[in-house]
């Protein structure tokens, strides 16, 4: 009897080690060369903010002109 049934090939060992390391790196917040969720979430929040500002400006301009506030040249 021996433990040889549980041997990995060098390639399997490397892949599994990377896999396990990445699981823990995500959890510990370590930076990775692989893409993470941080960038897409930041981009999404930024996009929402830009749209919100654009809508607010449009409403303000509409109110400005609709009620003929002095100085509206549109």
């Amino acid at each position, binding site marked *: 009897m021996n433990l040889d*049934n*549980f041997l990995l090939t060098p390639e399997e060992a490397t892949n*599994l080690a990377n*896999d*396990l390391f990445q*699981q823990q790196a995500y959890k510990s917040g370590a930076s990775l060369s692989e893409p993470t969720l941080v960038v897409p979430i930041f981009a999404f929040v930024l996009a929402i903010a830009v749209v919100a500002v654009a809508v607010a400006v449009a409403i303000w301009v509409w109110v400005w002109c609709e009620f003929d506030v002095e100085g509206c040249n549109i």
Partner: protein
Amino acid sequence: MLFFPSGIAFLYSYKCNFMCRHCSIGAGPHHDEVLPVEYVEKALREASDIASIQVVVATGGEPTLFPKHLELLIKTAADFGFVTRLVTNAWWARTLEMARRYVRKWRELGLEELNISFDDFHLEYLRLFGGEENVVNAARAAVEEGLRTVVAVTRTRETKIDASYVRKLLGDLAEEVIVADDFISPTSRASGLYEEAVENLPPFGGCAHAGSEISIHPNGDVAFCCGHITTDPASAWFTRVGNITKEHLWDVVDRIQRNVLIWYIKFIGPHVLVKKFNEEEEVKHICHACHLLATKYWKELETRGKEWIINDLKKEIKGLNVRVLAK
């Protein structure tokens, strides 16, 4: 790779002038097999090619019973730049003068750390060579020579000697000596002490020694840990992963690093596996868990196979919190 060996322990013989009831190695005067010195030298030379190995330990058995082996091991290891440690029962320290003679010689050869094993079980036999004063003499001589000095105490729930007893015994030396408490692993001869063994398992993670400390045995076998099941006839095979008389040490280390069961034992723990196979099983010590895997649960483990271990390892690692582990 996820881990590299940091230390190598030589159990070049299991022969001992004591026959302690708690000995999980099963050492004693009846053992005659000794690893030939040329293999000690070979293993050290090959270990020097593995950059991660920093510490070389002479243990056993009582390593001082083989002065030729011990002196060669300390000198060669020191010449290669390893930190050297001797684990002994201090039979040789009946008087302070005797202790100084021995320690000075080892120090001159390159010894850096003296680790004295002392507890209720050792004391039964130490009395034949002096008594507990041997521990004080050995520690004093080692401190005088500037060695890192450790007294390791092994306990059960019924033993009298613990770390505070040893500190009191050492008196003025206590400040300069590390006193470490540990609990027995009820394997090999110590299986007779099963009832009084205290349950002692790591709170998080697995076996820190697996794959990080390797050991070499009298017949040349290399084990993936410093192990307490190394001579138990029923489970010794479980830790053996190669043989120094037949192959290069690096080949053995390479196999240790690629064995996913050893990964599991190291990061998750053998006790977790045992509990998966039988929740009711009583596990007293992490080495006891490996003993149970090798005996009672080997068929189960073999049937589930490598893929099951890989998947379960992924699942268990996902559940670990490295920040908690780091604390």
